């Protein structure tokens, strides 16, 4: 009996410590979000009179409305909605195309090996380590000569090309652990190159698809450098618009509008994490341990 008591007692204590410290860290990390949300719900007068952490006395969505449709950034005063749409039009095709190409590359590099496949994969890996800044000027020239400067299509192209290295790495490491015998069995069953991919490999790939989508979505949505370099003005993505909004001052700093715009900018990634998050860790583990 005493053995049992002494065994459970420290466990309860350590549990308390663990959950206590976890809770503290969670609070610490949630604080900025809290400040963003309460600030966005206050009027400017209330912001100037109260403290940063105080709850709004008369909550209002005026700032959200203004940020969405009438806040001024640069010369135009149409809010961030146009840029939000730009970002969606950039991120969806860029994520889908780069993930599909990565999946195909992973499939070919592991199940249809050809001479020099190591070199190809090595070069793709190398591509992951090239810093953005190095390729800015050549990319700008290339986009210019393709007639894609200052367009969303241009941004999609840049993000797809830059993303292939990462997506290929993810899928290759996942498929390398996929049994070759299944591919051989499908071959003898009469399945062709694409049928084997779509019927046998792809249905088993959900974990790695989730990882790739989250990774690519977050990176592309949050990108600022490519957006500000290759798509200024009307074609700018959300991140660039947010920066312009915050930096263009017309007298008073409208903190509530800025915060609301920032929340708009963060919502899509938050959404992706909430929907697919539980697959994320599982997928990372699957790729890491088996690869």
């Amino acid at each position, binding site marked *: 009996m005493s053995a049992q008591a002494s065994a459970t007692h420290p466990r309860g204590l350590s549990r308390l410590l663990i959950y206590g410290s976890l809770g503290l860290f969670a609070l610490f990390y949630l604080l900025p979000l809290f400040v963003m949300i309460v600030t966005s719900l206050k009027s400017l007068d209330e912001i100037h009179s109260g403290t940063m952490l105080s709850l709004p006395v008369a909550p209002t969505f005026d700032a959200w409305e203004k940020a969405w449709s009438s806040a001024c950034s640069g010369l135009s005063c149409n809010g961030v909605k146009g840029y939000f749409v730009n970002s969606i039009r950039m991120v969806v095709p860029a994520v889908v195309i780069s993930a599909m190409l990565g999946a195909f590359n992973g499939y070919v590099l592991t199940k249809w090996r050809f001479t020099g496949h190591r070199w190809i994969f090595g070069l793709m890996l190398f591509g992951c380590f090239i810093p953005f800044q190095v390729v800015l000027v050549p990319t700008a020239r290339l986009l210019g000569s393709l007639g894609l400067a200052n367009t969303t299509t241009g941004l999609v192209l840049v993000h797809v090309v830059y993303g292939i290295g990462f997506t290929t790495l993810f899928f290759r490491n996942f498929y390398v652990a996929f049994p070759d*015998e*299944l591919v*051989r069995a499908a071959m003898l069953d*009469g399945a062709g190159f694409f049928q084997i991919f779509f*019927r046998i490999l792809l*249905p088993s790939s959900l974990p790695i698809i989730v990882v790739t989508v989250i990774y690519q979505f977050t990176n592309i949505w949050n990108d600022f450098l490519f957006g500000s370099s290759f798509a200024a003005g009307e074609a700018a993505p959300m991140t660039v618009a947010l920066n312009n909004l915050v930096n263009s001052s017309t007298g008073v700093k409208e903190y509530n509008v800025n915060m609301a715009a920032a929340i708009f900018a963060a919502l899509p990634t938050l959404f992706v994490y909430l929907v697919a998050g539980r697959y994320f860790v599982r997928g990372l583990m699957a790729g890491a341990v088996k690869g």
Partner: protein
Amino acid sequence: MAFLDVIALRKRYGTIEVLKNINIELEEGGFLVLVGPSGCGKSTLLSTIAGLETITEGEIRLAGNVINDLHPSKRDIAMVFQSYALYPTMTVEANIGFGLEMRGVPKLERAKAVARVAETLQLTHVLKRKPSQLSGGQRQRVAMGRVLVRNPRLFLFDEPLSNLDAKLRVDMRIEIKRLHQETGRTIVYVTHDQIEAMTLATKIAVLKDGELQQVGTPNEIYNRPTNLFVADFMGSPSMNLVRAAVVYQDGRKGLSISRRNGGGDLVLGIPPTITSTNLEEGRSLILGLRPEAITDRDSADRHARAVEFVDCTVELVEPAGSDTFVVTHLADKEVVARMRSDADVRPGQTLSFAFNLDKAVLFDPESGQRLG
């Protein structure tokens, strides 16, 4: 012309030759078992027939047509893999029907064929399940169903029973044998288990280090092994192989075998299958006798032409239920005799052993080849 013809086949990985000049032919409806120790190339040979591995030299013909360069999906061959290779995201039904679907068989016809195969293999109640929800034996049957549902020209089995427990393995072995008898399909089967080889095959090919040692019926392989490797590899317990010398005694030739602790050499007659004129006196040989060719006096084969009785000391007794294996010593080697299960034998006892020389084979010690 044979149905399956493997002609002068060679397979090299760089400079390493893993299959060396393989020649095998199999008639339609035959059951060929490729057997050998691990790494002998038997699975590689199967893969080349399936088209999953390319060949370096030679020819593979199926029903008279050269299929060397045909893609596996075009060879009309079905294969059961050692790991079963069931598609993990598909149900049993979809797994079995996949090959038909890929060949464009209409849905209704497909469902009928799947149902028929599921019925024979007793899989009807698990058709909607995924492979991960099945037991080992059920997975094995699904793998079988996947090849049976089609009507290919050739079936390949790559150690299909090696992942099953002993009891299930025996059951499935009987199932496969029955299947072959009832359907008359042509089968090539790889195993390292020589009991499977003996019981299933109409023809056995023994491989070692990528070289074909012997091709023949189970009876030929077992009773007239072409060399020491085949003699030693096939059969359990394996064949007794002891050194002997040709001597001239009492006006006729005989085989002299030294005994432990001196005690005078043991002399046996020349086996009747060998023409003794070819054996010069003093020549060294290796005598091969299966355990069942050495028995106790009472159970000696009455129809044998040459049975000789010799007193030996019993060293060890292994009762195996159906038989009792008795170990003694000849020419510094352990010799196993197979006796009746109720034979009254005790270690240390001197017993009269019956040597059935009809079943004896002789090998040349240098080349390892069988004589006669």
